[in-house]
């Protein structure tokens, strides 16, 4: 009987001279951890302070009067119904315009555009740049081209169009991400069954990317709802004592808040804070919907 010698190959030799005690790395770890905690505190703490301050200041003015009342020069009688309504209209318009345009653009860029052509690459770079353009620039553009150029006027529709421009690049980028995350094997499988390009995109790629598109669009929408600068630029006038209509003058909630903060009367400051709470609730509930959608339809490939 032969005894087989165990033969173990090591690619390292444990060096007995190396101490196994903790070396001088520990304080670096601790320092870094502290730096991270501090950064988080700065980011999160500021937000928390702002939120608490706003809620505490605005709480007394938070009433049905605020939600249903019309603006007034008397703080006790002032409400923000026209502004809230206009903000909701603006949001609806933004969704109506930006989702179809943004999604179709994203489909073109992801599924149809030939990246070897320079103009397609140019469009891609431009869209990314557009997402970084300050909103006030869109306001100026909107004033020149939409309000005056094609003569839409200082109306809700114009505001909706301008906010659409502001968020469109974001919607395109988010939709492209969502479309790109659909694995190629799905497209191949559909093509192999004799589906046309259109059927592959419309019946497989798009349904599979809807959660991502919805999440991105809602986040873009909540940004649009909070925008103030471009709306001031295109004349969302600040005193509107009637319900807005699509083609009528309007003010939006952020503009209304801005206006209240400019009033010397301290009661208006409270009102502004209360308005801010309303705006926060609107935006946060949109974000909640986005998170819900993302978790509900998360796909495992």
């Amino acid at each position: 009987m032969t005894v087989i010698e165990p033969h173990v190959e090591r690619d390292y030799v444990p060096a007995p001279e190396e101490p196994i005690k903790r070396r001088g790395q520990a304080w670096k770890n601790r320092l870094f951890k502290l730096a991270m905690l501090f950064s988080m505190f700065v980011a999160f703490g500021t937000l928390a302070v702002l939120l608490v301050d706003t809620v505490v200041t605005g709480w007394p003015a938070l009433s049905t009067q605020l939600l249903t009342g019309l603006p007034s020069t008397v703080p006790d009688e002032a409400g923000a119904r026209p502004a809230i309504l206009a903000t909701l209209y603006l949001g609806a318009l933004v969704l109506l315009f930006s989702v179809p345009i943004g999604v179709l653009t994203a489909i073109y860029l992801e599924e149809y555009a030939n990246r070897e052509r320079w103009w397609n690459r140019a469009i891609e770079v431009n869209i990314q740049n557009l997402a970084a353009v300050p909103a006030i620039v869109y306001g100026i553009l909107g004033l020149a081209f939409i309000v005056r150029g094609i003569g839409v006027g200082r109306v809700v529709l114009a505001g909706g169009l301008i906010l659409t421009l502001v968020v469109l690049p974001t919607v395109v980028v988010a939709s492209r991400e969502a479309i790109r995350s659909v694995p190629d094997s799905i497209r191949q499988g559909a093509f192999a069954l004799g589906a046309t390009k259109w059927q592959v995109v419309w019946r497989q790629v798009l349904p599979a990317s809807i959660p991502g598109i919805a999440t991105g669009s809602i986040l873009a929408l909540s940004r649009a709802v909070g925008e103030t600068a471009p709306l001031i630029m295109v004349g969302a006038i600040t005193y509107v004592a009637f319900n807005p209509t699509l083609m009528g003058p309007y003010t939006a909630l952020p503009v209304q808040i801005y206006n209240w903060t400019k009033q010397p009367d301290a009661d208006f400051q409270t009102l502004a804070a209360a308005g801010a709470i309303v705006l926060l609730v609107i935006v946060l509930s949109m974000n909640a919907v986005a998170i819900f959608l993302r978790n509900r339809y998360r796909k495992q490939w």
Partner: protein
Amino acid sequence: MTQMESPRIDSTRIAEVSHGLERTEVERREKVFSVSGLSVAYHGNVALDGVDLNVHRNTVTAFIGPSGCGKSTFIRCFNRMNDLVPGAKVSGTVLYHGEDLYARDVDAVEIRRRIGMVFQKPNPFPKSIYDNIAFGPRVLGMKGSLDERVENALRQAALWDEVKDRLKDGALGLSGGQQQRLCIARALAVNPDVILMDEPASALDPISTTRIEDLMHELKREYTIVIVTHNMQQAARVADMTAFFSVLVDEDGGRRHGILVEYDSTTKIFTTPSDKRTEDYVTGRFG
């Protein structure tokens, strides 16, 4: 990916397990594909060069060979899936029942409706089991009862009994082997003429692999099957005809492309190949 479990293939055993047809019998059957002088290049780099080969009706034809020999590239020429790869260029002729697949007026979509494909990794759509099968008939606007079609396809793919009570459940909840049979059923649902399988069992466990292989024996009665496989034993078990592809390295050593070395009945390829390179490969000395 290694198939080196048995470096010396027991050729008598293979001759037994392979129920492959004789070459003369295969060649008596109608030609489904007739390939001549086929070359494929990606962005000018030749991947596969000068392939001549016929595929006959109601047979299983296997393509074997080492990685990079162009066998997957080749199988994608039969349903023009290479059209979807940017920079791919196919030259030479592929006749399908005598018609040139690459003729100018041929619609690739029509071809893929007749020539189904199953991929290496199971790729069910993120939809219900039912909708996966129904997708093909729906996009092709096929008449008749959809429920019947779905049931037939699932029965042919030997999956019906496992899923009949949960057709509305998501297909992604199935096991890997079930997913692959679902993909086969999906391909069958559009009544194809040919089924191409690109390493259909390489991502599956041995039991699922056996089921897929049994399925191929069943399906060849009604369909013509072309399969790419890394697994030589699999080719020996399922194929009537086997084509061995290899990699040809240029003199300067820089460029390499795939070539067809030998194409013959499976029994011949695995017992008495005429080419030294085939022999080296099937006996495990190379590859």
